[in-house]
Protein backbone atom coordinates (compact mmCIF):
# COMPACT_ATOMS: atom_id res chain seq x y z
CA UNK A 1 0.00 0.00 0.00
CA UNK A 2 1.29 3.43 -0.86
CA UNK A 3 2.00 5.74 2.04
CA UNK A 4 -0.99 7.64 3.37
CA UNK A 5 -1.03 11.39 2.90
CA UNK A 6 -2.55 11.74 6.34
CA UNK A 7 -2.57 9.20 9.09
CA UNK A 8 -4.29 10.00 12.36
CA UNK A 9 -3.89 7.60 15.27
CA UNK A 10 -5.70 7.66 18.61
CA UNK A 11 -6.27 11.40 18.44
CA UNK A 12 -7.37 13.09 21.65
CA UNK A 13 -8.40 16.76 21.80
CA UNK A 14 -9.34 18.42 25.06
CA UNK A 15 -10.75 21.77 25.96
CA UNK A 16 -10.01 22.08 29.65
CA UNK A 17 -11.91 19.25 31.32
CA UNK A 18 -13.94 18.50 28.19
CA UNK A 19 -12.71 15.75 25.90
CA UNK A 20 -13.94 16.72 22.43
CA UNK A 21 -12.12 13.99 20.53
CA UNK A 22 -11.46 10.70 22.24
CA UNK A 23 -9.23 8.25 20.40
CA UNK A 24 -10.01 8.85 16.74
CA UNK A 25 -8.02 7.08 14.01
CA UNK A 26 -8.22 7.27 10.22
CA UNK A 27 -6.03 7.66 7.21
CA UNK A 28 -6.39 9.44 3.92
CA UNK A 29 -4.56 8.94 0.63
CA UNK A 30 -3.62 11.61 -1.90
CA UNK A 31 -6.47 12.19 -4.33
CA UNK A 32 -8.98 10.79 -1.88
CA UNK A 33 -11.91 12.40 -0.07
CA UNK A 34 -12.68 11.21 3.42
CA UNK A 35 -15.79 12.64 5.02
CA UNK A 36 -16.21 13.18 8.73
CA UNK A 37 -19.88 13.05 9.45
CA UNK A 38 -21.89 13.47 12.61
CA UNK A 39 -24.12 15.80 14.62
CA UNK A 40 -22.85 19.13 15.86
CA UNK A 41 -20.67 18.68 18.90
CA UNK A 42 -19.54 15.21 17.81
CA UNK A 43 -15.91 16.30 17.57
CA UNK A 44 -15.55 16.54 13.81
CA UNK A 45 -14.51 20.18 13.77
CA UNK A 46 -12.12 19.63 16.68
CA UNK A 47 -10.58 16.80 14.69
CA UNK A 48 -10.16 19.18 11.76
CA UNK A 49 -8.49 21.80 13.94
CA UNK A 50 -6.11 19.17 15.30
CA UNK A 51 -5.18 18.02 11.79
CA UNK A 52 -4.49 21.65 10.92
CA UNK A 53 -2.50 21.87 14.15
CA UNK A 54 -4.50 24.94 15.03
CA UNK A 55 -5.48 23.08 18.17
CA UNK A 56 -2.66 20.98 19.55
CA UNK A 57 -3.92 17.50 20.44
CA UNK A 58 -3.69 16.19 23.98
CA UNK A 59 -2.73 12.77 22.69
CA UNK A 60 -2.23 10.57 19.66
CA UNK A 61 -0.45 11.13 16.39
CA UNK A 62 -1.08 13.18 13.28
CA UNK A 63 1.21 11.95 10.55
CA UNK A 64 1.30 14.05 7.37
CA UNK A 65 3.36 12.84 4.42
CA UNK A 66 5.11 10.55 6.86
CA UNK A 67 6.02 13.24 9.40
CA UNK A 68 4.58 13.24 12.86
CA UNK A 69 3.23 16.74 13.51
CA UNK A 70 2.14 16.70 17.14
CA UNK A 71 5.68 16.53 18.46
CA UNK A 72 6.97 19.35 16.27
CA UNK A 73 7.59 22.82 17.61
CA UNK A 74 5.75 25.76 16.10
CA UNK A 75 8.96 26.65 14.31
CA UNK A 76 9.35 23.20 12.83
CA UNK A 77 5.72 23.23 11.77
CA UNK A 78 5.94 26.52 9.93
CA UNK A 79 7.32 25.19 6.63
CA UNK A 80 4.72 22.41 6.65
CA UNK A 81 1.68 24.57 7.35
CA UNK A 82 1.11 25.76 3.78
CA UNK A 83 0.71 22.17 2.69
CA UNK A 84 -2.38 21.63 4.84
CA UNK A 85 -4.89 24.35 4.09
CA UNK A 86 -8.32 24.97 5.56
CA UNK A 87 -11.46 26.08 3.77
CA UNK A 88 -14.08 27.11 6.30
CA UNK A 89 -17.83 27.39 6.24
CA UNK A 90 -18.11 31.17 6.34
CA UNK A 91 -16.60 32.37 3.09
CA UNK A 92 -16.45 35.96 4.31
CA UNK A 93 -14.81 35.11 7.60
CA UNK A 94 -11.76 33.55 6.00
CA UNK A 95 -10.81 36.63 3.97
CA UNK A 96 -9.93 39.93 5.57
CA UNK A 97 -12.74 42.40 4.80
CA UNK A 98 -10.27 45.23 4.24
CA UNK A 99 -8.10 43.55 1.63
CA UNK A 100 -8.75 43.27 -2.04
CA UNK A 101 -9.17 39.70 -3.24
CA UNK A 102 -5.93 39.75 -5.20
CA UNK A 103 -3.97 40.88 -2.11
CA UNK A 104 -5.59 38.14 -0.03
CA UNK A 105 -4.46 35.56 -2.57
CA UNK A 106 -0.98 37.08 -2.92
CA UNK A 107 -0.44 37.15 0.82
CA UNK A 108 0.50 33.50 1.34
CA UNK A 109 2.91 33.76 -1.58
CA UNK A 110 4.53 36.79 0.03
CA UNK A 111 4.68 35.20 3.47
CA UNK A 112 6.44 32.20 2.01
CA UNK A 113 8.88 34.38 0.11
CA UNK A 114 7.61 33.09 -3.19
CA UNK A 115 6.29 36.38 -4.49
CA UNK A 116 7.97 37.83 -7.54
CA UNK A 117 6.73 41.24 -8.68
CA UNK A 118 7.18 40.23 -12.30
CA UNK A 119 5.06 37.11 -12.43
CA UNK A 120 3.15 37.44 -9.12
CA UNK A 121 0.11 39.28 -10.48
CA UNK A 122 -0.20 36.81 -13.33
CA UNK A 123 -0.11 33.93 -10.85
CA UNK A 124 -2.90 35.50 -8.86
CA UNK A 125 -4.92 36.01 -12.02
CA UNK A 126 -4.26 32.39 -12.96
CA UNK A 127 -5.49 31.19 -9.57
CA UNK A 128 -8.67 33.25 -9.88
CA UNK A 129 -9.28 31.81 -13.30
CA UNK A 130 -8.58 28.35 -11.95
CA UNK A 131 -11.42 28.67 -9.45
CA UNK A 132 -13.80 30.02 -12.05
CA UNK A 133 -13.62 33.71 -11.15
CA UNK A 134 -12.99 36.42 -13.68
CA UNK A 135 -9.60 37.91 -12.72
CA UNK A 136 -11.30 41.32 -12.65
CA UNK A 137 -12.76 40.21 -9.31
CA UNK A 138 -9.27 40.57 -7.89
CA UNK A 139 -9.94 44.28 -7.48
CA UNK A 140 -12.94 43.71 -5.27
CA UNK A 141 -13.23 43.27 -1.54
CA UNK A 142 -14.99 40.26 0.00
CA UNK A 143 -18.28 42.05 0.69
CA UNK A 144 -18.52 42.92 -3.00
CA UNK A 145 -18.65 39.22 -3.88
CA UNK A 146 -21.50 36.77 -3.46
CA UNK A 147 -21.06 33.93 -0.99
CA UNK A 148 -20.18 31.48 -3.75
CA UNK A 149 -17.69 33.82 -5.37
CA UNK A 150 -16.12 34.51 -2.01
CA UNK A 151 -15.79 30.80 -1.26
CA UNK A 152 -14.07 30.37 -4.64
CA UNK A 153 -11.68 33.19 -3.71
CA UNK A 154 -10.96 31.41 -0.43
CA UNK A 155 -10.17 28.25 -2.35
CA UNK A 156 -7.83 30.23 -4.63
CA UNK A 157 -6.04 31.55 -1.58
CA UNK A 158 -5.65 28.02 -0.23
CA UNK A 159 -4.30 26.88 -3.61
CA UNK A 160 -1.71 29.67 -3.60
CA UNK A 161 0.02 27.74 -0.83
CA UNK A 162 0.37 24.71 -3.10
CA UNK A 163 -1.25 22.44 -0.54
CA UNK A 164 -1.42 18.66 -0.64
CA UNK A 165 -4.30 18.39 1.79
CA UNK A 166 -7.38 20.58 2.10
CA UNK A 167 -9.37 20.47 5.31
CA UNK A 168 -12.84 21.44 4.12
CA UNK A 169 -14.99 22.34 7.12
CA UNK A 170 -18.58 22.61 5.88
CA UNK A 171 -17.35 24.39 2.74
CA UNK A 172 -20.74 24.60 1.04
CA UNK A 173 -23.07 24.70 4.03
CA UNK A 174 -23.64 28.44 4.01
CA UNK A 175 -23.90 28.76 0.24
CA UNK A 176 -27.10 29.26 -1.67
CA UNK A 177 -28.36 25.98 -3.08
CA UNK A 178 -28.06 27.16 -6.66
CA UNK A 179 -24.33 27.87 -6.28
CA UNK A 180 -23.47 24.90 -4.07
CA UNK A 181 -23.23 22.38 -6.89
CA UNK A 182 -20.84 24.63 -8.80
CA UNK A 183 -18.43 24.83 -5.86
CA UNK A 184 -18.59 21.05 -5.31
CA UNK A 185 -17.81 20.57 -9.01
CA UNK A 186 -14.84 22.91 -8.68
CA UNK A 187 -13.49 20.96 -5.72
CA UNK A 188 -13.89 17.71 -7.65
CA UNK A 189 -11.99 19.15 -10.63
CA UNK A 190 -9.16 20.45 -8.46
CA UNK A 191 -8.79 17.10 -6.82
CA UNK A 192 -8.68 15.30 -10.14
CA UNK A 193 -6.11 17.71 -11.55
CA UNK A 194 -3.88 18.22 -8.53
CA UNK A 195 -4.28 14.97 -6.63
CA UNK A 196 -5.26 16.79 -3.45
CA UNK A 197 -6.43 14.89 -0.42
CA UNK A 198 -9.65 16.20 1.12
CA UNK A 199 -10.71 15.85 4.70
CA UNK A 200 -14.32 16.82 4.23
CA UNK A 201 -16.45 17.82 7.17
CA UNK A 202 -20.09 18.03 6.38
CA UNK A 203 -23.35 17.38 8.16
CA UNK A 204 -25.37 16.92 4.97
CA UNK A 205 -25.56 13.24 4.22
CA UNK A 206 -26.65 13.71 0.64
CA UNK A 207 -23.60 15.85 -0.06
CA UNK A 208 -21.33 13.35 1.69
CA UNK A 209 -22.72 10.42 -0.27
CA UNK A 210 -22.20 12.25 -3.50
CA UNK A 211 -18.82 13.77 -2.87
CA UNK A 212 -16.81 11.53 -0.57
CA UNK A 213 -14.96 8.31 -1.38
CA UNK A 214 -15.34 7.15 2.21
CA UNK A 215 -17.05 8.48 5.28
CA UNK A 216 -16.60 7.95 8.95
CA UNK A 217 -19.33 8.70 11.45
CA UNK A 218 -18.49 10.40 14.70
CA UNK A 219 -20.49 10.79 17.86
CA UNK A 220 -19.39 12.06 21.26
CA UNK A 221 -15.79 12.35 20.16
CA UNK A 222 -15.48 8.80 18.86
CA UNK A 223 -15.73 7.08 15.53
CA UNK A 224 -18.91 5.03 15.45
CA UNK A 225 -18.60 3.60 11.96
CA UNK A 226 -16.51 3.79 8.85
Amino acid sequence: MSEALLDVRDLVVRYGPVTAVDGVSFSLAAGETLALNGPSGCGKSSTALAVLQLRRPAGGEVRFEGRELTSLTERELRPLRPRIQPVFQDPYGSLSPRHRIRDAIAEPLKVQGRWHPTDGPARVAGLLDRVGLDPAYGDRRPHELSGGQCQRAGIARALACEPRLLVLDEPVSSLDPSVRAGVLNLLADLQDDLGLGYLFICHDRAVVRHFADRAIEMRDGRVTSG
Partner: protein
Amino acid sequence: MESEAQPPSEALLSVRDLRIAFDGVEAVRGLSFDVRPREVLAIVGESGAGKSLTARALLGMLPRDATTSGTISPDLSAARGRRISLVPQDALSALSPVHPVGDQLAAAVRSVARVSRAKARARAVAALERVGIPDAARGARAYPHEYSGGMRQRAVIAMATVNAPEVVVADEPTTALDGERRDQVLRLLAERREAVGAALVLVTHDMDAVRGHADRVLVLYAGRPTELGPADEVLDHPRAPYTAGLLASLPRSATPGRRLPALRGTPPAPGTPAPGCAFAPRCPIAAGPCHTTEPEPRQAAGRLVACHRWEELPHPAADLFLQERRPA
Protein backbone atom coordinates in the same frame (compact mmCIF):
# COMPACT_ATOMS: atom_id res chain seq x y z
CA MET B 1 -50.44 37.26 -10.33
CA GLU B 2 -53.84 35.98 -11.38
CA SER B 3 -56.19 34.89 -8.67
CA GLU B 4 -55.64 31.36 -7.58
CA ALA B 5 -57.98 28.49 -8.33
CA GLN B 6 -59.55 28.69 -4.88
CA PRO B 7 -62.11 31.47 -4.38
CA PRO B 8 -60.72 34.29 -2.21
CA SER B 9 -63.17 33.51 0.58
CA GLU B 10 -61.27 30.26 1.10
CA ALA B 11 -58.12 32.14 1.93
CA LEU B 12 -57.02 32.80 5.46
CA LEU B 13 -54.62 35.43 4.20
CA SER B 14 -54.45 37.03 0.79
CA VAL B 15 -51.33 38.76 -0.42
CA ARG B 16 -51.72 40.86 -3.56
CA ASP B 17 -48.98 42.58 -5.51
CA LEU B 18 -46.72 42.89 -2.50
CA ARG B 19 -43.68 45.07 -3.11
CA ILE B 20 -40.99 45.81 -0.56
CA ALA B 21 -38.24 48.31 -1.25
CA PHE B 22 -35.27 49.76 0.55
CA ASP B 23 -33.90 53.11 -0.61
CA GLY B 24 -35.93 52.77 -3.79
CA VAL B 25 -34.46 49.34 -4.52
CA GLU B 26 -37.16 46.69 -4.72
CA ALA B 27 -36.35 43.43 -2.99
CA VAL B 28 -39.85 41.95 -3.37
CA ARG B 29 -41.22 42.91 -6.76
CA GLY B 30 -44.87 42.04 -7.04
CA LEU B 31 -45.98 38.95 -5.23
CA SER B 32 -49.47 37.50 -4.86
CA PHE B 33 -50.50 34.36 -3.05
CA ASP B 34 -53.02 33.03 -0.58
CA VAL B 35 -52.52 31.16 2.64
CA ARG B 36 -55.31 28.66 3.04
CA PRO B 37 -56.69 27.41 6.35
CA ARG B 38 -54.61 24.62 7.92
CA GLU B 39 -52.29 24.27 4.97
CA VAL B 40 -48.50 24.17 5.01
CA LEU B 41 -47.26 26.64 2.43
CA ALA B 42 -43.52 26.53 1.86
CA ILE B 43 -41.86 29.64 0.50
CA VAL B 44 -38.50 28.65 -0.93
CA GLY B 45 -35.78 30.76 -2.38
CA GLU B 46 -32.18 31.70 -1.89
CA SER B 47 -30.76 34.57 0.10
CA GLY B 48 -31.98 37.77 -1.50
CA ALA B 49 -34.99 36.10 -3.10
CA GLY B 50 -37.29 38.00 -0.75
CA LYS B 51 -38.71 35.07 1.17
CA SER B 52 -37.85 36.28 4.65
CA LEU B 53 -39.04 39.80 3.86
CA THR B 54 -42.33 38.36 2.69
CA ALA B 55 -42.66 36.42 5.93
CA ARG B 56 -41.85 39.52 7.98
CA ALA B 57 -44.44 41.48 6.02
CA LEU B 58 -47.14 38.98 7.03
CA LEU B 59 -46.19 39.57 10.63
CA GLY B 60 -45.83 43.33 10.31
CA MET B 61 -42.20 42.99 11.33
CA LEU B 62 -40.40 44.65 8.44
CA PRO B 63 -37.45 46.89 9.20
CA ARG B 64 -38.46 50.50 9.67
CA ASP B 65 -36.75 51.73 6.51
CA ALA B 66 -38.75 49.40 4.28
CA THR B 67 -41.32 50.87 1.90
CA THR B 68 -44.15 48.55 0.99
CA SER B 69 -47.08 48.55 -1.39
CA GLY B 70 -49.78 46.06 -2.25
CA THR B 71 -52.17 44.43 0.20
CA ILE B 72 -52.13 41.74 2.82
CA SER B 73 -55.63 40.99 4.04
CA PRO B 74 -56.62 40.57 6.69
CA ASP B 75 -53.81 42.47 8.38
CA LEU B 76 -52.96 40.25 11.32
CA SER B 77 -49.91 42.15 12.42
CA ALA B 78 -51.78 43.85 15.26
CA ALA B 79 -52.72 40.39 16.53
CA ARG B 80 -49.19 39.07 16.54
CA GLY B 81 -48.80 36.42 19.20
CA ARG B 82 -52.54 35.77 19.14
CA ARG B 83 -53.67 35.16 15.54
CA ILE B 84 -50.28 34.99 13.87
CA SER B 85 -46.94 34.02 15.36
CA LEU B 86 -43.32 33.58 14.40
CA VAL B 87 -40.83 30.75 14.78
CA PRO B 88 -37.56 32.50 13.94
CA GLN B 89 -34.34 31.00 12.67
CA ASP B 90 -32.43 31.92 15.75
CA ALA B 91 -34.28 30.61 18.78
CA LEU B 92 -32.07 32.53 21.18
CA SER B 93 -33.13 35.85 19.72
CA ALA B 94 -36.77 34.97 20.29
CA LEU B 95 -36.31 34.32 23.99
CA SER B 96 -35.32 36.78 26.65
CA PRO B 97 -32.07 35.70 28.28
CA VAL B 98 -33.03 37.12 31.68
CA HIS B 99 -36.34 35.35 32.29
CA PRO B 100 -37.04 31.68 32.86
CA VAL B 101 -38.60 30.03 29.81
CA GLY B 102 -41.81 29.20 31.67
CA ASP B 103 -42.29 32.83 32.74
CA GLN B 104 -41.98 33.94 29.13
CA LEU B 105 -44.56 31.42 28.00
CA ALA B 106 -46.90 32.36 30.85
CA ALA B 107 -46.55 36.02 29.91
CA ALA B 108 -47.47 35.14 26.34
CA VAL B 109 -50.56 33.32 27.59
CA ARG B 110 -51.61 36.25 29.77
CA SER B 111 -51.09 38.71 26.93
CA VAL B 112 -54.13 37.27 25.16
CA ALA B 113 -56.19 35.57 27.88
CA ARG B 114 -57.40 36.83 31.23
CA VAL B 115 -56.23 34.00 33.35
CA SER B 116 -54.62 33.84 36.75
CA ARG B 117 -50.86 33.63 37.06
CA ALA B 118 -51.13 30.09 38.33
CA LYS B 119 -53.26 29.05 35.40
CA ALA B 120 -50.98 30.73 32.87
CA ARG B 121 -48.08 29.00 34.50
CA ALA B 122 -49.81 25.63 34.28
CA ARG B 123 -50.49 26.23 30.59
CA ALA B 124 -46.88 27.13 30.06
CA VAL B 125 -45.71 23.90 31.62
CA ALA B 126 -48.24 21.92 29.59
CA ALA B 127 -47.05 23.66 26.42
CA LEU B 128 -43.45 22.70 27.18
CA GLU B 129 -44.55 19.16 27.85
CA ARG B 130 -46.30 18.97 24.50
CA VAL B 131 -43.14 19.94 22.63
CA GLY B 132 -41.21 17.23 24.42
CA ILE B 133 -39.24 19.15 27.04
CA PRO B 134 -38.32 16.48 29.59
CA ASP B 135 -39.42 17.33 33.13
CA ALA B 136 -41.33 20.34 31.89
CA ALA B 137 -42.01 21.75 35.36
CA ARG B 138 -38.29 22.05 35.91
CA GLY B 139 -37.66 23.11 32.33
CA ALA B 140 -40.08 25.98 32.87
CA ARG B 141 -37.88 27.34 35.64
CA ALA B 142 -34.70 27.15 33.55
CA TYR B 143 -33.25 30.02 31.52
CA PRO B 144 -32.81 29.83 27.74
CA HIS B 145 -29.03 29.44 28.03
CA GLU B 146 -29.56 26.31 30.11
CA TYR B 147 -31.39 24.73 27.17
CA SER B 148 -29.61 22.93 24.34
CA GLY B 149 -30.05 24.31 20.83
CA GLY B 150 -32.68 21.73 19.96
CA MET B 151 -34.61 22.31 23.20
CA ARG B 152 -34.60 26.05 22.63
CA GLN B 153 -36.12 25.51 19.23
CA ARG B 154 -38.79 23.39 20.88
CA ALA B 155 -39.47 26.09 23.43
CA VAL B 156 -39.89 28.63 20.65
CA ILE B 157 -42.36 26.33 18.91
CA ALA B 158 -44.26 26.05 22.19
CA MET B 159 -44.29 29.84 22.40
CA ALA B 160 -45.52 30.21 18.82
CA THR B 161 -48.39 27.78 19.27
CA VAL B 162 -49.43 28.28 22.89
CA ASN B 163 -52.19 30.74 21.93
CA ALA B 164 -53.50 28.62 19.05
CA PRO B 165 -52.95 31.18 16.30
CA GLU B 166 -54.43 30.88 12.81
CA VAL B 167 -51.09 31.27 11.10
CA VAL B 168 -47.62 30.25 12.22
CA VAL B 169 -44.77 31.72 10.19
CA ALA B 170 -41.55 29.73 10.51
CA ASP B 171 -38.58 31.62 9.10
CA GLU B 172 -35.77 29.18 8.30
CA PRO B 173 -36.53 27.24 11.49
CA THR B 174 -34.02 24.51 10.74
CA THR B 175 -31.09 26.30 9.14
CA ALA B 176 -28.98 26.14 12.26
CA LEU B 177 -29.70 22.45 12.87
CA ASP B 178 -28.15 19.31 11.44
CA GLY B 179 -29.95 16.46 9.68
CA GLU B 180 -31.52 14.49 12.48
CA ARG B 181 -32.55 17.44 14.57
CA ARG B 182 -33.84 19.22 11.51
CA ASP B 183 -36.31 16.45 10.88
CA GLN B 184 -37.34 16.39 14.52
CA VAL B 185 -38.05 20.11 14.52
CA LEU B 186 -40.01 19.93 11.28
CA ARG B 187 -42.05 17.03 12.58
CA LEU B 188 -42.74 18.85 15.80
CA LEU B 189 -43.79 21.99 13.95
CA ALA B 190 -46.12 19.96 11.77
CA GLU B 191 -47.56 18.21 14.80
CA ARG B 192 -48.19 21.35 16.83
CA ARG B 193 -49.63 23.17 13.82
CA GLU B 194 -52.00 20.29 13.26
CA ALA B 195 -53.00 20.21 16.92
CA VAL B 196 -53.91 23.89 17.08
CA GLY B 197 -55.37 23.95 13.56
CA ALA B 198 -53.08 26.69 12.29
CA ALA B 199 -51.76 27.21 8.80
CA LEU B 200 -47.99 27.12 8.55
CA VAL B 201 -45.95 29.37 6.29
CA LEU B 202 -42.60 27.63 6.14
CA VAL B 203 -39.84 29.86 4.80
CA THR B 204 -36.79 27.87 3.81
CA HIS B 205 -34.00 27.44 1.31
CA ASP B 206 -34.03 23.72 1.97
CA MET B 207 -35.87 21.66 -0.63
CA ASP B 208 -35.71 18.63 1.65
CA ALA B 209 -37.78 20.50 4.19
CA VAL B 210 -40.43 21.02 1.55
CA ARG B 211 -40.78 17.41 0.54
CA GLY B 212 -43.03 15.57 2.92
CA HIS B 213 -43.77 18.66 5.00
CA ALA B 214 -45.53 21.12 2.70
CA ASP B 215 -48.86 21.01 0.90
CA ARG B 216 -47.97 23.76 -1.52
CA VAL B 217 -44.77 25.50 -2.45
CA LEU B 218 -44.08 29.01 -3.69
CA VAL B 219 -40.68 29.33 -5.35
CA LEU B 220 -39.18 32.83 -5.37
CA TYR B 221 -36.32 34.14 -7.42
CA ALA B 222 -35.01 37.69 -7.24
CA GLY B 223 -38.12 38.96 -5.50
CA ARG B 224 -40.55 37.43 -7.99
CA PRO B 225 -42.69 34.29 -7.95
CA THR B 226 -41.37 31.58 -10.24
CA GLU B 227 -43.70 28.72 -9.54
CA LEU B 228 -46.59 28.13 -7.14
CA GLY B 229 -48.40 24.83 -6.84
CA PRO B 230 -48.84 21.51 -5.04
CA ALA B 231 -45.51 20.71 -3.41
CA ASP B 232 -45.12 17.14 -4.62
CA GLU B 233 -46.03 18.01 -8.19
CA VAL B 234 -43.63 20.93 -8.29
CA LEU B 235 -40.81 18.85 -6.81
CA ASP B 236 -41.46 15.84 -9.03
CA HIS B 237 -41.98 17.74 -12.21
CA PRO B 238 -40.85 21.35 -12.01
CA ARG B 239 -42.07 23.53 -14.86
CA ALA B 240 -39.95 26.62 -14.33
CA PRO B 241 -36.28 26.36 -15.37
CA TYR B 242 -35.07 27.81 -12.08
CA THR B 243 -36.94 25.23 -10.01
CA ALA B 244 -35.73 22.48 -12.32
CA GLY B 245 -32.10 23.60 -12.09
CA LEU B 246 -32.21 23.97 -8.35
CA LEU B 247 -33.66 20.51 -7.88
CA ALA B 248 -31.30 18.92 -10.38
CA SER B 249 -28.28 20.38 -8.59
CA LEU B 250 -29.13 18.74 -5.28
CA PRO B 251 -26.63 15.92 -4.75
CA ARG B 252 -29.18 13.18 -4.31
CA SER B 253 -30.93 13.59 -7.61
CA ALA B 254 -27.66 13.77 -9.48
CA THR B 255 -26.70 11.06 -11.85
CA PRO B 256 -23.77 9.04 -10.49
CA GLY B 257 -20.38 10.54 -11.18
CA ARG B 258 -18.67 13.38 -9.53
CA ARG B 259 -19.99 16.34 -11.47
CA LEU B 260 -23.36 17.71 -10.52
CA PRO B 261 -25.73 19.56 -12.74
CA ALA B 262 -25.23 23.15 -11.64
CA LEU B 263 -26.66 26.56 -12.29
CA ARG B 264 -24.07 28.89 -13.71
CA GLY B 265 -23.51 32.30 -12.18
CA THR B 266 -25.15 33.66 -9.06
CA PRO B 267 -28.51 35.21 -8.19
CA PRO B 268 -28.69 38.90 -9.12
CA ALA B 269 -28.14 41.49 -6.42
CA PRO B 270 -31.28 43.48 -5.61
CA GLY B 271 -31.61 46.63 -7.69
CA THR B 272 -29.75 45.26 -10.67
CA PRO B 273 -32.51 43.69 -12.70
CA ALA B 274 -31.82 43.67 -16.41
CA PRO B 275 -34.92 44.04 -18.56
CA GLY B 276 -36.62 40.73 -19.06
CA CYS B 277 -36.61 37.62 -16.88
CA ALA B 278 -34.35 37.90 -13.82
CA PHE B 279 -33.25 34.30 -14.37
CA ALA B 280 -32.30 34.77 -18.02
CA PRO B 281 -28.51 35.10 -17.47
CA ARG B 282 -28.52 31.66 -15.83
CA CYS B 283 -31.23 29.98 -17.83
CA PRO B 284 -30.26 27.30 -20.35
CA ILE B 285 -33.39 27.81 -22.47
CA ALA B 286 -33.58 31.62 -22.45
CA ALA B 287 -34.49 33.09 -25.82
CA GLY B 288 -36.35 35.98 -27.44
CA PRO B 289 -38.85 37.50 -25.00
CA CYS B 290 -36.83 36.32 -21.99
CA HIS B 291 -34.42 39.19 -22.55
CA THR B 292 -37.02 41.89 -22.95
CA THR B 293 -40.14 41.09 -20.92
CA GLU B 294 -40.45 39.92 -17.33
CA PRO B 295 -42.70 36.84 -17.35
CA GLU B 296 -45.95 37.06 -15.38
CA PRO B 297 -47.25 34.03 -13.49
CA ARG B 298 -49.86 32.15 -15.51
CA GLN B 299 -51.85 29.01 -15.00
CA ALA B 300 -49.93 26.09 -16.43
CA ALA B 301 -49.92 22.39 -15.68
CA GLY B 302 -52.12 22.77 -12.60
CA ARG B 303 -50.09 25.55 -11.01
CA LEU B 304 -48.80 29.05 -11.58
CA VAL B 305 -45.61 29.34 -13.60
CA ALA B 306 -43.80 32.56 -14.48
CA CYS B 307 -41.84 31.60 -17.57
CA HIS B 308 -42.22 32.48 -21.22
CA ARG B 309 -40.92 29.16 -22.39
CA TRP B 310 -42.04 26.63 -19.81
CA GLU B 311 -43.39 24.38 -22.53
CA GLU B 312 -39.86 24.05 -23.94
CA LEU B 313 -38.44 22.67 -20.71
CA PRO B 314 -37.65 18.95 -21.00
CA HIS B 315 -38.34 16.55 -18.16
CA PRO B 316 -36.12 15.54 -16.54
CA ALA B 317 -34.11 18.68 -17.13
CA ALA B 318 -30.86 17.72 -15.40
CA ASP B 319 -28.88 17.37 -18.63
CA LEU B 320 -29.53 21.02 -19.41
CA PHE B 321 -27.53 21.98 -16.38
CA LEU B 322 -24.48 19.79 -16.89
CA GLN B 323 -21.54 22.13 -17.30
CA GLU B 324 -18.50 21.66 -19.41
CA ARG B 325 -15.57 20.64 -17.29
CA ARG B 326 -13.11 23.49 -17.00
CA PRO B 327 -9.77 22.66 -18.57
CA ALA B 328 -6.98 22.40 -16.03
